[in-house]
C-alpha cells in the first residue's frame, strides 16, 4: 500500500469533522473523493500532507508515518505533492522559478539541473514556452498546469488535488483535466477531490463518497455510479447529475 489512513479523527473546536476515516491507496491508483460541501473532503486531503493536524489516527505514505501532533513534516511532504483550487503560484517568481524553487531550496539540486528539470516538467504540461512568463500573464488553466508542474518537480509518490478545476472558467477546465488524465495514464498515484462526476467515473480506480465526516461508501466507480448502495450516495449523485 502506498497510502494508508487509519482511524483518522479531526475536530475543529466542537465540530467533529473527520469521524474515523480509513483509506488504502495502491501505487498507481487514482482515487476520487466526492461528497457534499462540508463533508470533510478537503480536511482529509490536507491531513495527508500535514497542512491540517488531526486528533487521532495514523497517516502513512510510502512508509513515512505521520502521527497526531507531529511537527516534523519534511520527510512526509517530500513524498506528497499538492495542487490547490486557487493555484497558489508564487506571483513574484517567473513560471520557471516557481517550478525550480523547491528542488533548489529543499533538495539543493544545482541551478542547471533545476532548470532542465523545470523545463521538462513544463513541457509535460504543455507550457514549455512559458518558462520566463510571470503567473499573472497566464490564463487560469495555464496557471493550474504550472502548479501541477511545480508539484511534479519534487517527484512526489502521490499527488493530492483539491477541486483543481473549480476556480476555472468552463472553457479552461478541459485542458487541466487532460493533464490530470495524462498523469493518471502514466501511472501517477492521485487522490483528488472533484465535482466533475463524469471525469471521476472515467479516470478513477476507486471512488470514495464522504458523508458527515465518514467514508459512507466506496468502491469501483462504475459500480457505484450504476448502483449506489446507500440512499445518501444515490441522492448525492441524483443532485449533481
Amino acid at each position, binding site marked *: 500500500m502506498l497510502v494508508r489512513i487509519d482511524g483518522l479523527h479531526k475536530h475543529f473546536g466542537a465540530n467533529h469533522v473527520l469521524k474515523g476515516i480509513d483509506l488504502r491507496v495502491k501505487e498507481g491508483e487514482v482515487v476520487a473523493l466526492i461528497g457534499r460541501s462540508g463533508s470533510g473532503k478537503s480536511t482529509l486531503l490536507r491531513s495527508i*500532507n*500535514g*497542512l491540517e493536524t488531526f486528533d487521532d489516527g495514523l497517516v502513512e505514505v510510502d512508509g513515512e508515518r505521520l502521527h497526531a501532533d507531529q*511537527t516534523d*513534516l*519534511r520527510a512526509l*511532504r*517530500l513524498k*506528497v*505533492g*499538492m495542487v*490547490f483550487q*486557487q493555484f*497558489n*503560484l*508564487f*506571483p*513574484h517568481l*517567473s513560471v520557471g522559478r516557481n517550478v525550480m*524553487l*523547491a528542488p533548489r*531550496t*529543499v533538495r539543493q539540486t544545482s541551478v542547471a539541473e533545476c532548470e532542465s528539470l523545470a523545463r521538462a516538467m513544463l513541457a509535460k504540461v504543455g507550457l514549455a514556452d512559458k518558462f520566463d512568463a*510571470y503567473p*499573472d500573464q497566464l490564463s487560469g488553466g495555464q496557471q493550474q498546469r504550472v*502548479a501541477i508542474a*511545480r*508539484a511534479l518537480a*519534487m517527484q512526489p509518490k502521490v499527488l493530492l488535488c483539491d477541486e483543481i478545476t473549480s476556480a476555472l472558467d468552463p472553457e479552461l477546465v478541459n485542458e487541466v483535466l487532460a493533464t490530470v488524465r495524462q498523469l493518471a495514464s502514466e501511472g501517477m498515484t492521485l487522490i483528488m477531490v472533484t465535482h466533475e462526476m463524469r471525469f471521476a467515473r472515467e479516470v478513477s480506480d476507486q471512488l470514495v463518497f464522504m458523508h458527515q465526516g465518514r467514508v459512507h461508501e466506496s468502491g469501483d466507480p462504475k459500480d457505484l455510479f450504476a448502483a449506489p448502495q446507500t440512499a445518501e450516495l444515490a441522492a448525492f449523485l441524483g443532485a449533481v447529475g
Partner: protein
Amino acid sequence: MMEFSIWDLIRNLGVGAAWTLGLSLTAFVLGGVVGLLVLAARVGPWPRLNRLAKAYIVVFQGTPLLMQLFLVFFGIALAGVDVPAWLAAAIGLTLFTSAYLAEIWRGCVEAIPKGQWEAAASLALSWGEQLREVILPQALRIAVAPTMGFSVQVVKGTAVTSIIGFAELTKTGSILANATFQPFLVYGLVALGYFLLCFPLSRFAARLERTFHARSH
C-alpha cells in the same frame, strides 16, 4: 556674553544634526535587525514566543518613548554601570524602533494570502524557507512605504534624547538659544534642520513606492 554669527550657529547646529542623523541611522539599522527577529518570533510556529513578542510590541507601543529612554538610562545606571547618554539613546531608540518595525512588517506578512504559505509548505519548504523564499519577498513590496514613513518618525523621535543630555540637534539648539538669547532664530534653524533630514526621506519613500508599483514583479 559671547557673540555668535549666523555661521557659528549653523556650524554648531550642523554638528548636532550629524549626531541626530547618526543616531537615527543606528536606531533604524539595529532596530531593523532586532525588528526582524521580533517579527519572526511574532509570526513563527511557536505559541510561547508569539506571546512574548506580542508583549514586547505592546509594551513599546503603549508607553511614551521618553519613559523608555528614562528606564534605559536610569535602569542601567541603577545596575551600577555608568552609561553615556549616546549609548542610552541608541539602545532606547533601537528597542522602540524594533517594536514598531516588527508590528509594521507583521501587517505586511499577514497581508500575504495563506495559500502562499500552504503552497510553499506542501513543497516541503521549512517554515524559515517559506518565510524567506515566498513570504518576505512579497511582503517587502508592501512594506517599503510604511517602513520609510516610519523612518521619518525615528528621526523626529531622536529629539527626546536631548532630555537625557545627548547633544543632538534639539539639545544643541537649546544650548545655543540660551547663549544667544535668540530662541526664535535658533529653533527656526533647528526646525529647518529636521526638515532637511526628513524631506528627502519622504521623497525617497514616495519614489520607492512608485518603483515597486510599476515593477509588479
